[in-house]
């Protein structure tokens, strides 16, 4: 399996093949429904985002709480299609990669291609397995959203398949 470093650069994205397995290492931001709604509302109001998404990868997940000294709880992907209404706006503001599960709407696929971005899928329902690929986790925005807060994860050899680019 090919090893890929995060953040991604556009040259690497160009070299990816649909259906190819990759192992991702580096920084991911987590965001799911509630965080997406807030981010896009901020953009609509012309305000500044609480974190920069330029060149970043968003992982659609809402982890279970970490126990004691553990880094994170179970953290598998959630259904990406629910983020579809918000995704084009984030791509326009520099988001470059997304990881989730399941199909995307046609207009989202068009947007992904237009901005030279990439959508990966990982293994839904493998929350315990994927938690072992996370080296650190810290909330960086919207802490009141608890599981839906935006976190910065450092992952190592996080398995995914190239689905749309």
């Amino acid at each position, binding site marked *: 399996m090919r090893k890929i470093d995060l953040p991604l650069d556009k040259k690497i994205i160009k070299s990816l093949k649909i259906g190819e397995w990759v192992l991702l290492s580096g920084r991911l931001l987590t965001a799911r429904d509630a965080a997406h709604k807030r981010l896009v509302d901020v953009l609509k109001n012309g305000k500044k985002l609480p974190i920069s998404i330029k060149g970043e990868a968003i992982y659609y997940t809402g982890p279970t709480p970490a126990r004691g000294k553990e880094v994170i709880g179970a953290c598998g992907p959630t259904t990406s299609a629910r983020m579809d209404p918000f995704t084009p706006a984030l791509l326009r503001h520099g988001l470059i990669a997304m990881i989730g599960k399941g199909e995307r709407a046609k207009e989202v696929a068009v947007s992904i291609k237009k901005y030279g971005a990439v959508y990966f899928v990982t*293994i839904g*329902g493998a929350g315990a397995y994927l938690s072992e690929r996370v080296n650190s986790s810290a909330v960086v925005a919207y802490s009141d959203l608890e599981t839906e807060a935006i976190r910065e994860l450092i992952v190592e050899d996080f398995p995914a398949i190239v689905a749309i680019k």
Partner: protein
Amino acid sequence: MRTVKDILITKTVKGLCLKANIELRKDILLALRQARKREFASTPKYVLGIIIENAYLAKKKRLPICQDTGMVVVYLRLGQEVRIKGDIKKAVEKGVTQAYKQGFFRKSIVSDPLKRKNTGTNLPSIIHTDIVPGNKLDIRVVIKGFGCENASRTKMFRPFDSTDLIEDFIAGTIKEAGSKTCPPVYIGIGIGGTLDKAVGLSKEAVLRPVGRHSRLPHIARLERSILKKVNRLEIGPMGIGGKATAMGVSILTYPTHIAGLPVAVNISCHATRDARRVI
């Protein structure tokens, strides 16, 4: 009359919530292993291997199988000769609260479906109560994640619509859902009754061990036929193609009205979770 104390109910519900979230049902695990054996292509075989490894890892590390630790649905079958000491529903909810705290499970419930503020406790749960003969209390805890819940459907057919139409509706539902539901899925189907009864049956259908068929020959035939049709879709684990789109189909039926034929499809992911205890 036999007395059952509320603290015993709380303790039992807590134990069942912990078990259901951490230990994958044995029949589901077996079905996943069989699906892996049947798969020849390397990618779906690899993904099924990870799903199976995930189940073992969760049990070993006492971690939830899936981060979506669901909305809790509790089935109480209360013997009519049982007297409950204390408040039965409060006792159940206390058990859920304790399990979600102790297990470090995700709190996924919002108090108002439109205002959407997290309750922070994973409460309320949904409690179904049935009064039955005897002096036992049968408690079943179901953990339902919403990736697959969102893809479930109902349709009111006409009384003499063919089973082909029903099969097409079910296969169409699975096709439309794609890999959002975390295949291989267990498909629960309720046929008959009223709208709510059909939905209730479709939920209870996945409590039957996967692979076991209906005792009614025409329903068992329908189950096999739907399973074949769905697996011909080749959505496969993670949506990457493969033979295992569904690991099983279970249908429950109930008498219905001369004017109707309600059908409900409940899709349950490869982490179909529940636990049961009789006290």
